[in-house]
């Protein structure tokens, strides 16, 4: 699976256990945002980014494959993540 950390770059991750773990972290982070738990979100989101960097192999610059999943920018704030779920999102038109 190819994962992009937005504003950073693409990584190739092995399917199976690794992506399953990422999925769990992802859902927990969403739950933390919905519960308004900023500290927990910050912790989980940092874990997601670190997990991708640790388990992924960076894609070379001339690799043209698109990503399966895109992780929001590493410096995403709690407020931005909250807005991501309330409509406006991180990416303006």
């Amino acid at each position: 699976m190819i994962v992009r950390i937005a504003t950073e770059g693409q990584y190739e991750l092995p399917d199976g256990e690794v992506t399953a773990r990422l999925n769990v972290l992802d859902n927990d982070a969403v739950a933390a945002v919905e519960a308004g738990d900023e500290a927990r979100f910050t912790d989980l989101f940092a874990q997601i980014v670190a997990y991708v960097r640790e388990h992924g192999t960076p894609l070379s610059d001339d690799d043209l494959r698109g990503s399966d999943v895109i992780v929001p920018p590493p410096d995403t704030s709690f407020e931005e993540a909250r807005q991501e779920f309330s409509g406006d999102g991180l990416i303006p038109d």
Partner: protein
Amino acid sequence: MAGLTGRFSTVVKAKISKLLDRAEDPSETLEYSYQKQMELLQNVKKGLADVVTAKKRLQLQSQKLEQQVVKLDTQARQALAAGNEDLARTALERKSAVQNELQGLDSQVAELEGQQQSMTENQQKLQAKIEAFRSKKEVVKAQYSAAEAQVRISEAATGVGEEMADVGLAMQRALDKTENMRARAQAVDELEKAGAFEDLTQLGSGEDDIDRQLRQLSSSTQVDSELERMKAELSAGGHNAGELGSGGDAPSAGGQSA
């Protein structure tokens, strides 16, 4: 994945397809986008230069204040040695006020230093990202001009489109931050223009009121001590009169006769 990453992926991908739908000639669009990225990078660099300038200004003010602290300290000692405790107190009070200013200034300098570092990192990351985009762009262009199958082009375009959108996002975030820091740098500039630093630095140049009082004090003590010496010499009798001419040339503030 349905969570944060899934949601984010969907939004980014929607943006990419919008981007690609608009493009008539992929290589031209990519080239234009690359030029635009290079231009925006210049803005980030300019913002960084502003922060560095603001930091240097504050450091200069800070140095002046440090000199001022040393000067006021010396003045206080001089005043005390001359027996004027009130004047010494005035000097020490000013010293403490200047030290407070200095602390505030130093923390501002430290803050700008931190901003400078994060902006430098940001700029380096952006440069690397633009480079990655350039590589992808070149691959697509090579394929396009070699007139390979259109299907392959559009697949490739997804990858390069994603990179393009991502550089755009990175750029936008960097520019937002740059604007923020630029505003802070401008605030320093305006403070300086408004003369906020002048009151403090004026103390550092030329002679201030403490200097004048110290001078008066030392000249009066010089007069006093010279008078005392003359009295002593006169009362000691005529045989010391020959030494008076050579010893009296450069009287100093005190203790010489002991």
